[in-house]
């Protein structure tokens, strides 16, 4: 496989795409897991399907359609949540299914044979083109820059939004910005794992990092590392066993997550019994 990476452009693209995806996933994943926005991210991702369909209908790059739909969904969900006071899970599910429905409609309206959409739905890291890669690089840099520049503000916002607001932070602006970053991250991830599998790559590395690291900085770093492990590991599995890369990446990340959950349970159980032992000895 190493040889293939040096020989073939598509393998190089795949590896670079995996690295970029892991970095943005680690950063944004930790933030949305903390803020409990994982389902909202799922809603944004699925709404993007409408954009893919629109791209096929009017013959422009579907990924651009996905970009605009994801951004619109992010602002739409954020706006209705803030103004309407309706339950956010209801709004998310509306966007979720409406986006998918629009995608199906647009593709049905397109004359001729329906295109193969599985690479958008389930991802195909081996089909990442040079143009995709440039878009991914640009979006990833934007996400990293926004998070880095306002790092302290993000941290204060994530820990205690109300307090940050009382201290004069524009928390409404930060919320919209975070949703925008989620939308951009989703677009980066669509080519790697696809719309349907995006949530797993956002949530799993961050959730694993949560179990093993105590500080926020370390949590982001670990989430990026686990992202790398799963995307590059999944790519390897996909290469050798000839399975869809999106599926192998997601399955690997779920397996690692499960492993760490079991480890955490055993660890907690052991701590409890040790404490009980000590209490008995004292008595």
């Amino acid at each position: 496989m190493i040889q293939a990476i040096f020989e073939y452009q598509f393998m190089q693209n795949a590896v670079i795409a995996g690295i970029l995806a892991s970095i943005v996933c680690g950063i944004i994943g930790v933030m949305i897991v903390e803020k409990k926005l994982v389902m909202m991210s799922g809603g944004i991702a699925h709404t993007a399907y409408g954009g893919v369909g629109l791209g096929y209908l009017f013959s422009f790059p579907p990924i651009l359609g996905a970009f605009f739909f994801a951004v619109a969904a992010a602002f739409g969900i954020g706006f209705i949540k803030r103004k309407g006071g309706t339950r956010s899970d209801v709004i998310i599910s509306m966007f979720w299914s409406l986006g998918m429905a629009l995608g199906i409609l647009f593709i049905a309206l397109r004359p001729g044979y329906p295109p193969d959409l599985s690479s958008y739905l389930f991802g195909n890291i081996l089909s990442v083109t040079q143009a995709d890669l440039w878009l991914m690089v640009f979006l990833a840099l934007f996400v990293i820059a926004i998070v880095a520049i306002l790092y302290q503000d993000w941290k204060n916002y994530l820990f205690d939004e109300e307090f940050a607001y009382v201290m004069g932070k524009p928390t409404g602006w930060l919320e919209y910005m975070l949703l925008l970053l989620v939308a951009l991250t989703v677009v980066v991830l669509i080519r790697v794992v696809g719309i349907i599998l995006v949530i797993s790559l956002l949530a799993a590395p961050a959730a694993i990092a949560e179990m093993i690291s105590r500080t926020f900085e370390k949590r982001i770093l670990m989430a990026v590392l686990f992202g790398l492990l799963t995307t590059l590991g999944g790519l390897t599995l996909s290469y050798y066993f000839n399975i869809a890369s999106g599926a192998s990446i997601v399955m690997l990340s779920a397996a690692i997550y499960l492993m760490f959950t079991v480890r955490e349970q055993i660890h907690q159980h052991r701590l409890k019994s040790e404490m009980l032992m000590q209490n008995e000895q004292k008595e």
Partner: protein
Amino acid sequence: MVPAVEVRDLSVFYGRNVALKSVNLTVQQGEYLGIIGPNGGGKSTLLKAILGLVPTSRGSIRIFGGSLQENRTLLGFVPQFSAIERRFPISLYEVILSGRMKAGLQVFARYTLEDHERTKEAMEQIGLSHLSQRQVSELSGGEFQRMLIARALVSQPKLLLLDEPTASVDATARKQIYELLAKLNEKITIILVSHDMLAISSQVSSLACLNSKLVYHGGPELNDRTVDSLYGCPVDLIAHGLPHRVLRDHTHGPGGIV
């Protein structure tokens, strides 16, 4: 002296529900006000309205004679314990330090030497120095609550607003918190929201009772008529075996306490 807080004809609606209706309340500087009332009576809503956290439908709120925007820095806020994710990976020191954050978005923000000094002072004052590097997930309820108070104090506010600061802490920690607040009240104004009216009536210098409307504002002794209109039914205050008196002796008329 200009009042610390002046609430005029304040109404707040949540959707179609009235949370607060035509509330008028003046809190003098140096006052230690306890806000009590039934659940859903608008206690927290009033506190949040003063802080600008909920949109007001009608009325005005003046903070030290000015608007909230002008005098934001004079306020210290201690939110409800349950409003915060305690598993967040942040140390006690970092939380208290965050009380020094500046308003507005800050590009590559860094805390100054003075910010760190104030943080250490506040930790010392509240007796949390030994827990400095502890993660918030490892703190007890009482330690966590005192940390939130310390965070509010590092900005050196003139008015401290606390939302249920003794909920979910044990008796020892509760006593510590009340002692701390009594000491702070020597210098600053305090507004405290609590459902625990028996406990706070012995602490505060005045009480406000809210049940959508302001039912009572005055000295910390309540009579049963106030309590009746507050909770809608007679509450047997005596049966709790109070360590202190909440009620004045009733000498006049039937309907007093039996």
